[in-house]
């Protein structure tokens, strides 16, 4: 259960991007969130993934109320979310080869012994070859980099996936491949999904239910 109640969030205290937004997801549910550019859906996704402290409102993840965000949030709560961003280029540290990119969450949480096996497994899942794994972000295409970013999001086996316009920069075949990877993962683990995007056709096909941004604001 992921429950957001009356969330107000933004980047300047006096001018929030949105006010009073509520949204809730059942366990294992896939929810598509549709909305125009700049309405704040990415910010809401960041709030949900514990990456942005809202100005007001409450968030409950699997029954536990969230009181602290980012580094202050307990590690188990943070790593319960796998996040994939829109721009793969900006969400990959330019200094890390794709292997290290995917393995970074394992190393950060002290699971070094899993690195080799898990990286090989996920590379096969998302369709990255060994040759690509040794390259750094600027040496691969956007599609290949987004595959690595998805692998990184899955590496800690999160209970929730947040895909913030994950496929907006990609062509149709890569989009289909990435969506299939996400769906396979959800089918095997029962993870929930919050997918944000513009593409109604894609989200309708991908998710159990889609909501319009306009319907979320109450009062």
């Amino acid at each position, binding site marked *: 259960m992921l429950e957001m109640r009356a969330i107000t969030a933004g980047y300047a205290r006096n001018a929030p991007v949105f006010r009073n937004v509520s949204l809730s997801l059942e366990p294992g549910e896939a929810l598509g969130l549709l909305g125009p550019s700049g309405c704040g859906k990415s910010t809401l996704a960041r709030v949900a993934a514990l990456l942005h402290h809202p100005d007001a409102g409450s968030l409950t993840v699997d029954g536990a109320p969230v009181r602290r965000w980012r*580094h202050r949030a307990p590690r188990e709560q943070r790593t319960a979310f796998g*996040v994939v961003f829109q721009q793969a280029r900006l969400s990959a*540290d330019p*200094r890390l080869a794709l292997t290290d990119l995917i393995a*970074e*969450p394992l190393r*950060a949480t002290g699971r070094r012994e899993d690195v080799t096996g898990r990286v090989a497994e996920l590379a096969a899942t998302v369709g990255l070859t060994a040759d690509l794994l040794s390259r750094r972000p600027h040496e691969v*295409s956007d599609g*290949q980099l987004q595959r690595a970013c998805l692998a990184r999001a899955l590496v800690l086996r999160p209970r929730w996936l947040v895909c913030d316009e994950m496929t907006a920069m990609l062509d149709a075949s890569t989009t289909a491949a990435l969506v299939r990877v996400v769906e396979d993962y959800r089918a095997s683990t029962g993870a929930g999904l919050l997918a944000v995007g513009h593409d109604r056709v894609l989200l309708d096909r991908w998710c159990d239910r889609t909501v319009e941004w306009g319907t979320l604001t109450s009062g």
Partner: protein
Amino acid sequence: MADVAAEKAEKTEKAKRTGRAGRAGQSERAAPAADAGNAEGAEQAGTPWRAHGTDRRSTRTLRLRVSAALLTLTVLAVLLVPPLAQLDQQAVDLAAKLQPPSWAHPFGTDDVGRDLLLRCVYGLRVSLLVGVAAALTATVVGTAVGATAGALGGWVDRSVMRVVDTISSVPHLLLGIFIVAMFRPGVWPVVISVALTHWLSTARIVRAEVLSLRSRPYIDAAVSGGASRWRVAVRHLLPGVLPQAALAAVLMVPHAMWHESALSFLGLGLPTHTASLGNLIQEARGSLLAGQWWPTLFPGLFIIVPTLAVAGLAGAWRERVNPRRRSELML
């Protein structure tokens, strides 16, 4: 797997558009090889677009080589001339005072007949020591303070940066004099004085850089991946700011040398009998007005040449360690 094939096909097509047919696959494969320090990639490609890259590459290599050669030369001079040449830089020869450059004295002599080449080498030795030591200390302090302020943010950032503003509102030289006056004249008080007055700009540069890196999505991804503050700082933020910090350190070396000479001129820095480049130029002021240019010119060159050489090397290194820039330059 079908989509991987589609992506590959798309890639070859892209390569055909930029490269010439037939060579496309080859240059595509050569690109990572070139990155691994193998020059083949750039030489294999024959397109005008690549040729431009090769051109810029060769001018950069030239700059790198010239800088390295000049720096090696000065460092060798500093290290080898004093032990090899069994000459006394303090030897006074009043019969040969203020002689223009000649074979016996390539840089001429000063107003008491001391050989200027020898004096310059000894002076560079002292000035470089002061400059490098002060710049290193200042950079380490500045990076630590700036990175802490930038990475923690909030009230820590605000109060630390206000302290930085307060210190930098006092003129450098005044504060430097205050610090150096607390010790006996010598090399280390000068180093401490210069270092403690010059970490402020590095702290500002590093903080600004950390702030810009901190808002990138890859930091969000690291947070979501369970990285601690410390890990984010050490793994993602510091490697990103080090090139800037290194460049700041290098640009600080000449600045530190100038401060050393200013302090020496005021009688608070190095003792006047010690040959430092600052002392040499100060002593030569009088003879410059009388038309003797060499006692000023050569110590001046000794400041400029190593500065330019180190700056050239630092620029080349920065381009090399910044991967994105490196790919833009097709290195």
